[in-house]
């Protein structure tokens, strides 16, 4: 079982927080903070597993994470999950994000947290791995996007125009974390169909 999926940036700002077990909001924030401090002090060239210890669940749980440019993707899993498998799953998730957002960058995650959740929901459901095949995941997401479009979406046209006006104000922000140059070397992992 996957207990929690956390995405935060190099400064510990949460970008996606998904717990599959109930924690009050303060505790969730605390876990995010502590997890951030745990992974922050780890170099990029050391192993991607660490014992979560007191954070969630106890000794049966592990934190498995990957670091892409400005973002950390952390999965907290118990012993029933294969460590290397989860590492690969993170890769699948990130590649799916990359496909859906076309060159995903941190900003996409910031402004479209809801969409990131919807993508995640096609990968992991209730703490269990739902689908590992990226094409299947992307197909389902696109189908749902089409459905949403046919309904007119959340923001109707006039609102979008206003939004464009508001966009003028956009502060200077780093653009594009390209997945290509962040690839962490994973040995023979992409064997999953």
């Amino acid at each position, binding site marked *: 079982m996957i207990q929690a999926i956390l995405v935060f940036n190099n400064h510990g700002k949460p970008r996606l927080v998904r717990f599959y077990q109930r924690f*009050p909001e303060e505790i969730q924030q605390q876990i995010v903070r502590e997890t951030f401090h745990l992974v922050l002090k780890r170099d990029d060239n050391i192993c991607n597993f660490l014992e979560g210890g007191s954070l969630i669940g106890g000794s049966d749980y592990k934190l498995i994470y990957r670091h892409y440019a400005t973002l950390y993707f952390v999965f907290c899993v118990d012993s029933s999950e294969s460590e290397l498998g989860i590492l690969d799953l993170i890769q699948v998730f990130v590649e799916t994000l990359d496909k859906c957002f076309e060159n995903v960058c941190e900003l996409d995650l910031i402004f479209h947290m809801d969409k990131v959740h919807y993508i995640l929901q096609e990968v992991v459901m209730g703490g269990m791995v739902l689908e590992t095949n990226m094409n299947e995941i992307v197909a389902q997401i696109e189908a749902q996007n089409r459905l949403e479009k046919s309904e007119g979406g959340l923001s109707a046209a006039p609102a979008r125009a206003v939004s464009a006006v508001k966009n003028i104000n956009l502060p200077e922000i780093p653009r594009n974390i390209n997945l290509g140059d962040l690839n962490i070397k994973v040995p023979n992992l992409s064997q999953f169909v």
Partner: protein
Amino acid sequence: MALKMVKGSIDRMFDKNLQDLVRGIRNHKEDEAKYISQCIDEIKQELKQDNIAVKANAVCKLTYLQMLGYDISWAAFNIIEVMSASKFTFKRIGYLAASQCFHEGTDVIMLTTNQIRKDLSSPSQYDTGVALTGLSCFVTSDLARDLANDIMTLMSHTKPYIRKKAVLIMYKVFLKYPESLRPAFPRLKEKLEDPDPGVQSAAVNVICELARRNPKNYLSLAPLFFKLMTCSTNNWVLIKIIKLFGALTPLEPRLGKKLIEPLTNLIHSTSAMSLLYECVNTVIAVLISLSSGMPNHSASIQLCVQKLRILIEDSDQNLKYLGLLAMSKILRTHPKSVQAHKDLILQCLDDKDESIRLRALDLLYGMVSKKNLMEIVKKLMTHVDKAEGTTYRDELLTKIIDICSQSNYQYITNFEWYISILVELTRLEGTRHGHLIAAQMLDVAIRVKAIRKFAVSQMSALLDSGHLVASSTQRNGICEVLYAAAWICGEFSEHLQEPHQTLEAMLRPKVTTLPGHIQAVYVQNVVKLYASILLQKEQAGETEAAQEVTQVMVERLPQFVQSADLEVQERASCILQLVKHVQKLQAKAVPVAEELSALFAGELNPVAPKAQKKVPVPEGLDLDTWINEPPSDSESEDEKSKTIFREEEQKHTQHRQPEVDEAELARRREARKQEQANNPFYIKSSPSPQKRYQDAPGVEHIPVVQIDLSVPLKVPGLPTSDQYVKLEEERRHQQRLEKDKKKKRKREREREKKGKHRRQRSLPTESEEDIAPAQQVDIVTEEMPENALPSDEDDKDPNDPYRALDVDLDRPLADSEKLPVQKHRNAETSKSPQKEDVPLVEKKSKKPKKKEKKHREREKEREKEEQRKPSRHKKQHRKEKAGRSKGKKAKQQPPTCAEAAGPVENGAAEEEPLPPMSSYCLLAENAYIKMTYDIQASLQKESQVTVSIILENQSSSFLKNMELNVLDSLNTKMARPEGSSVHDGVPVPFQLPPGVSNEAQFVFTIQSIVMAQKLKGTLSFIAKDAEGATHEKLDFRLHFSCSAYLVTTPCYSDAFAKLLESGDLSMSSIKVDGISMSFQNLLAKICFHHHFSVVERVDSCASMYSRSIQGHHVCLLVKKGEKSVSVDGKCSDSTLLGNLLEEMQVTLAQC
């Protein structure tokens, strides 16, 4: 209307959407909290609007704020509104928010049942999908119970997308509603062979999760999994299956033998490291289970170890880590094969990666021997010095202690070395394991008698040095060591070189900065020390010196009397008075030392941690019966008991035995035996062969084990452990030389033999008096109570949520075992209430009441027991009933899609709005008993309803022989047992102890349901208390309202429209003024009390539908005005409609 729409969308242009919110937060970095609170206010405004798009947008923003740590549970109701939107876009937002913030404690969650059911059967697969995903995050036991059947139907959906989600969510359902496991299991098993790989993978996933917790129930699936393993190419599935086999093999060694070959093949063939790794892991598990150690398996072990070595040597840190992890599993059973790679593991200790170092540390644990312990610990000590992060250093510290203390200090040849290691560890600043070091010091000092002198000298140095006192800020920090030091110095004060100096050290003013529990130990042990000094001085005749010591005590103790800690204060003031008294006696030149020492006389024995638990319950003692009246509210109990036992450890400090000669000991032993023999309450130890030491109750007969040590004992000051390493080397060298020289000497051979056996507990020594010139170290074993049963069961957690899932899956399904189909809680057809006791037990658990909590728990336990050891007659009993009445129900699982189209009925009780409502209303009440009742109808029985009556005993008497009787009317009759007349009552199938409530169900037959009915009735019972028994009666009037005959039946809007068009319905309407309740709650109330379901809701107007048990359709149109509500009804029977509207008017008038 159109104008309003346009206006609405223009307004919306200025609402913030999620992107605006995020942007705003980023632009208000300085006053983020203020900005967000402003946004929350806006969101609250938006949520009040009727436009669902605005609401959805607001909920979407809330979801973002939830991620930032804001509690959004206040919007739970709005989230439900958005969830029930018809558009997928909004629905998805609602379910996402719900999945982030709903949980077991969310009270409105019960309102979602019908919505979720509707979504699950939606024709759009994405509506269903989104509902399943959401539900997987917030399913509660109620939702699981009510929706289990719907989800199970979805497991055979035509779309694989839905199938796989339905399969996965079943695991959550099982966890929350374990009864569903057996009925659902066959279909789950089916899904293992689903044509779609995703569904198959999901099924494997679920079964693996289940099997991990209770592997033995899934052994029968092994052949199926074996087949899957050999033909599947999906690595995810393979990994899961291989992991599952790892859990199964310990239970079935034959399976393991079969697995070895295919797994070995996989290891050789696969290129995926993840798969390779899991294969190696499972091979290891197999080899562990085949512990017989057949020679041909050593090849497999070698293969595994080799592969792991390759992993460990890999430059990829992840593989290195996993290699070490797997290695530690091999270590447990085949330490030899791992020990060969010691070099590699020691090398990993120097790795820059902390996780890898930690794993290597784990391995070290199994690699130590007597020979290399000192060397390895020395290496670890250098790491301790280097480690900068406290977590890793703490880990090192615990590891050192673990390694040294493992299997009863098996590998320690020199305890002085160990004590000095412990003392060295006390120099660590900021560790959180002071307590651990302290516990070790105490353990060693108490159990290794020969080391006490040395330990005391070290401890007094610790007390003296003061650096520990300075670091006393942190609880459980290193200052905990002082707790041990003070106690050891006090308890074994006869070994102290300079007791006076230690006394001074313990009375320093700085001591008062220590945590309370340590000060308390200080105070207590200061007296022990004082007593021993006094004894010394008096024996030496130095009365003045003795008085001086007393003076010091009188001067210094007041600092403890002023302590804020209760324990310290109490002890100190008590002792201060004692010392003052001694002072007076001393002034009169009365010798007091002997008497004072007598305070602490007595030897201390180490007691095993589990000893208390293992005390067998004497025959005839039933711990479950109440001694007194059960307390009405037991919440505060736990806290209380904690404070009572908090300082338990300090009890050690009370007994002490100064040197007692052999004769005295013998005398005492005799006296004790005599006393025990005469004491009827003393449980005599039965001579059991396997626990020899129990025969001798005396302390002296505790078996001790001897170790020869030829190291001089006294090392001045705080030693470094290093010198012991050198000494040890020398000693061993010498031993070797000696051995070589005197090989042939018989005596030496004997000693060698002795050396080999030295840890075996079965070597009791006569007494400690015969300590040979070569030092002896005795490890006293921990005491256990007589008759203690050796067992390991005590580590099982009774609250384990997975325990409930431990059910036999191979037993064929009984008829009674099926998922609850959406039905109104109803009783079985035409059967008398007294046969109901079995289902009653199950039904009751629905209405938790605090008072009956205890009772309920026991009830549950009984239930579980019944499940575990299936009582034959119970099952038969059920079958009988099922055979009689369930003919119709047998096929209650409609085919997948048919359900989507057809109307679905639903439980009425779930529609509770925010103020919790109960469908139970008061029937009658007197001093003895309170009766509340609810009437349940079912579409399956057109002329019958079930009345559930909760009987609550309000008195202190025991109520029995309860009998319920009603005066039947022509229309309504109570079903009585066969052969009894209409005037006979129906007995209630249980008795009621004081304060307990229970539910009984009675079946009534009705002919016409268009009119409300009132029946007069009486409950008679015998109330028995201390004074005697009295016969009592309670009259009541049972009201059968017309609403009671309605059954909540969902209806889709098209069917509803057709119904209205058909024109054969008569119409009537009412209007109620002065209504303040919100429309939503109002609807919920109608749904709940009158068993309607909402067909459609548009703003403040809703259409509702219900059906009577005799098939009358009832349609309502409810409109809310400013302060009024109008209800237009249409029904196939005008009388029924009239009566229903009348009842509704009463309900609405209360709103």
